[in-house]
């Protein structure tokens, strides 16, 4: 068997700053002119849109100067929330500020919690709840559902929410971001226009907010183009299911340990969550998910299958027994924290939310940061527009000195120690938590997942064979995600097609949707010709972390998440 392979050595055929950044090209009278364009209809983008409309209500002159469409949100999913997925326990600070007293959809407040260490497939040890896991006062939400609600509010306030619309290029001229270009529709498998081809349009705006989420397509291009990068971003992959269960769960549960391995060599960092989703008049549900860092070494680590395996633990099986799976999904989570957060602005542009890695890893929080950032973005955009300026540089400092920056800074070194393994890493992180991040201090650099070597291990034997009742295969999971991308859609995945076996295996196992397949007659060693079933893709972003790169598919494609 060949030795470990480093994904970085097989870069995808793509040059983002060249391919996805361009000047406006439509004739002037065909360009769509809006005041502010927001890319992404998730919590960050919609908090921004709502805050903008509220601020503009008090600035009639400015509002009038922005024209017929003061605020446009561009969302590639069929609906806002269709591509959103999270646990989630949300700190309500942002939504309470944006919509005080509003009746937004949620599944109750956290009333109890346990943290379990699973040392094996059958045992569980209850740990005292460490500070980062204390969620008192937080609210169980479905970010897919919440986004739909936020979108309705934004539209009521007068924003245009353009769903099924991908933003495929960043418009830049004279060093200033001028807006975005929407994606083409009606291309075939090989990219050639079909009979009903409709080209995208230049959406020209006076300010652009990138709120694209975890694998931000334009964000990646902008970071390259404007030199905004700090430490490399790291990601984890979360795979989640929602179950209707006979008995309501009475607490939030987090687990560590099994099925992940604790040795430093394997680089398996992560754990699970199980949250109650109880709402009057609806059957009791739980949200259950597993997260694992994508810097792992074993090519056969499949978070989807680890989740299936995890469900067979007696403590977990008990919760799901007699229930029905009603949702499934997957999404990458940025875990680089403070050091990996890029510079957040360029002339005419700001970045908010997961796209900039605003996730507090030890506390598993990101939604409220995304919303706070969206709101800050709105405030800075309005200030700049009033001054007739494209200089948004004050936004970066504002985020860093806000609660977003304070929390990210405090937890800035809390994931990296786990590279030393579960127990040593845990000890170091505990020390950090206890000292509010001051000890041991320093700058623990992040490492790109694509730099982590992979080799084929033996995990696959431990994955349960799907029984269709408790455990499920990838294809039937993709099915219930609502993914029905047309067969002749163009290929949106950039990845080397001929790669060493170990790397092909890594992608094949990693991908929760079964996109990457190895032909049956491929050699056990040496290079293989990858099969890429890109229409299965649920756009989680994992491939972007581990040696490939997603680009935006046709607007409307991909999953239709509702409860995730």
């Amino acid at each position, binding site marked *: 068997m060949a030795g470990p392979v480093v994904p970085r050595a097989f870069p995808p055929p793509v040059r983002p700053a060249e391919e996805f950044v361009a000047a406006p090209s439509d004739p002037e009278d065909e360009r769509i002119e809006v005041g502010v364009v927001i890319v992404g209809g998730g919590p960050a983008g919609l908090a921004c849109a709502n805050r903008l409309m509220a601020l503009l209500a008090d600035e009639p002159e400015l509002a009038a100067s922005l024209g017929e469409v003061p605020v446009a949100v561009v969302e590639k999913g069929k609906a806002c929330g269709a591509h959103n997925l999270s646990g989630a326990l949300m700190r309500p600070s942002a939504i309470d500020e944006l919509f005080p007293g509003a009746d937004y959809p949620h599944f109750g407040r956290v009333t109890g919690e346990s943290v379990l260490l699973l040392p094996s497939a059958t045992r569980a040890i209850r740990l005292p709840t460490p500070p980062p896991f204390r969620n008192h006062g937080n609210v169980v939400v479905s970010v897919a559902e919440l986004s739909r609600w936020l979108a309705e509010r934004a539209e009521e306030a007068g924003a245009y929410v353009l769903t099924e619309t991908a933003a495929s290029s960043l418009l830049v001229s004279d060093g200033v971001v001028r807006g975005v270009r929407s994606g083409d529709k009606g291309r075939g498998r090989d990219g050639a226009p079909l009979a009903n081809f409709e080209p995208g349009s230049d959406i020209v705006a006076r300010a652009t907010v990138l709120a694209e989420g975890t694998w931000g397509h334009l964000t990646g291009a902008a970071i390259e183009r404007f030199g905004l990068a700090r430490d490399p971003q790291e990601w984890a992959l979360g795979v989640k299911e929602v179950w209707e269960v006979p008995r309501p769960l009475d607490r939030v549960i987090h687990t560590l340990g099994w099925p992940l391995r604790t040795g430093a060599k394997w680089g398996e960092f992560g754990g699970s969550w199980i949250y109650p989703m109880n709402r009057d008049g609806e059957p009791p549900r739980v949200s259950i998910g597993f997260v694992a860092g994508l810097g792992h070494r074993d090519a056969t680590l499949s978070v989807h299958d680890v989740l299936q395996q995890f469900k067979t633990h007696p403590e977990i099986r008990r919760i799901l027994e007699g229930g029905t799976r009603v949702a499934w999904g997957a999404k990458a989570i940025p875990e680089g924290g403070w050091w990996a957060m890029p510079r957040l602005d360029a002339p005419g542009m700001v970045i908010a939310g997961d796209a900039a890695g605003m996730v507090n890893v030890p506390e598993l929080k990101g939604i409220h940061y995304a919303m706070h950032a969206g709101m800050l973005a709105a405030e800075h955009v309005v200030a700049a527009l009033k001054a007739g300026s494209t200089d948004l540089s004050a936004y970066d400092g504002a985020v860093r000195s806000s609660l977003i920056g304070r929390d990210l800074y405090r937890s800035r070194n809390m994931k990296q120690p786990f590279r030393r393994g579960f127990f040593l890493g845990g000890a170091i992180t505990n020390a950090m938590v206890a000292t509010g991040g001051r000890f041991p201090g320093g700058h623990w650099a992040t490492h790109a997942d694509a730099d982590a070597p992979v080799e084929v291990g033996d995990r696959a034997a431990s994955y349960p*064979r799907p029984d*269709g009742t408790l455990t499920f*295969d990838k*294809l*039937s999971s*993709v*099915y219930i995600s609502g993914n*029905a991308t*047309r*067969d002749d859609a163009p290929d949106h995945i950039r990845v080397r097609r001929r790669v060493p076996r170990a790397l092909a295996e890594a992608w094949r196992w990693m991908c929760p949707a079964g996109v990457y397949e190895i032909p049956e007659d491929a050699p056990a060693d040496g290079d293989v010709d990858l099969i890429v*079933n890109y*229409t299965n893709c649920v756009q989680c972003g994992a491939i972007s972390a581990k040696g490939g790169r997603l680009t935006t598919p046709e607007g409307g494609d991909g999953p239709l998440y509702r409860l995730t």
Partner: protein
Amino acid sequence: MNVLVYALHRDGAINKNSLGAVSEAARVAAELGGEAHAVLVGGDELTDELLASLGAFGAAKAWRVRGPEGLAQPVVDAMGVLMSEHGYEYAVFGGGLLGFEIGAGLAARIGAGVTMEVTRIAVDDGRLIAERPILGDSSISTSRYKGKGIVIGRLNAFDAREDPSAAPAAVEDLEVQFSDFSTRPRMVRRGEQRGEEINIEDADVLVAGGRGLGDKDGFGALEELAGVLGGAVAATRAVVDAGWYPYSAQIGQTGKTVAPKLYLAAGISGAIQHKVGMQGSENIVAINKDSNAPIFEFADLGIVGDLNKIVPKLTEAIRARKAS
């Protein structure tokens, strides 16, 4: 109560779904204490013999109406008159495209209730009820009619039952004044077959191939098997993507949905994206070398083995059986 049944015909032969409708209508009419009568609209090919032959399927009487063939609205005119003036409480149509049009128009004409895609009719409390599958066949909905009721069957749902010893149907002519708009469409060419693209949705038997075939040549054996079974060949998305078979044959979530009498799946794993396109098939037979393939969970007959050995021998055996 009497039940009126529309009998579609062409070239001197009655459509088999209509024959099924006659059989079913006769069954429920008897329970309702009445009779089933057929109605046919057409020209010279509507001989006494042809109409009388419906007696073998349970029709006590057959109405003959001279009028244009293959158009819906003239039939609405005819059945409208019959339902209103000759005391029929229910009308039944066999599965098929024209039946939908006629049945709906008739419901509007006489103010009756109509149910389509019906898979079963029965009598409950002295009234006709109709059942139809909904939501991708995951649930059955029952219809009851406040007044007169019109039932349009699902394709191949009603089985024809022939009793050669039964009395021939009494033939009666009916003259109908067609509405002006009914006769405005002009049939230029009726029933043109399009050879190149066999419509797999209409086939009674489908032999489908998947990745397990190994390569596109595997379809040769399937075509032969389909030939002796009198069916057509279908394919999964994976092999269509790989270029082994044309898209027009693709079954599944993003392909066609079929419900033939026999669906024989060779080398198909049975992932749900495929299953939803064929799960309504009456008989599902699967051949796959992997005993863990999900298709074995919902196949009526599963054979774990090498399709390259089984399929050619099966073709031969069927050919021999048919010859004897």
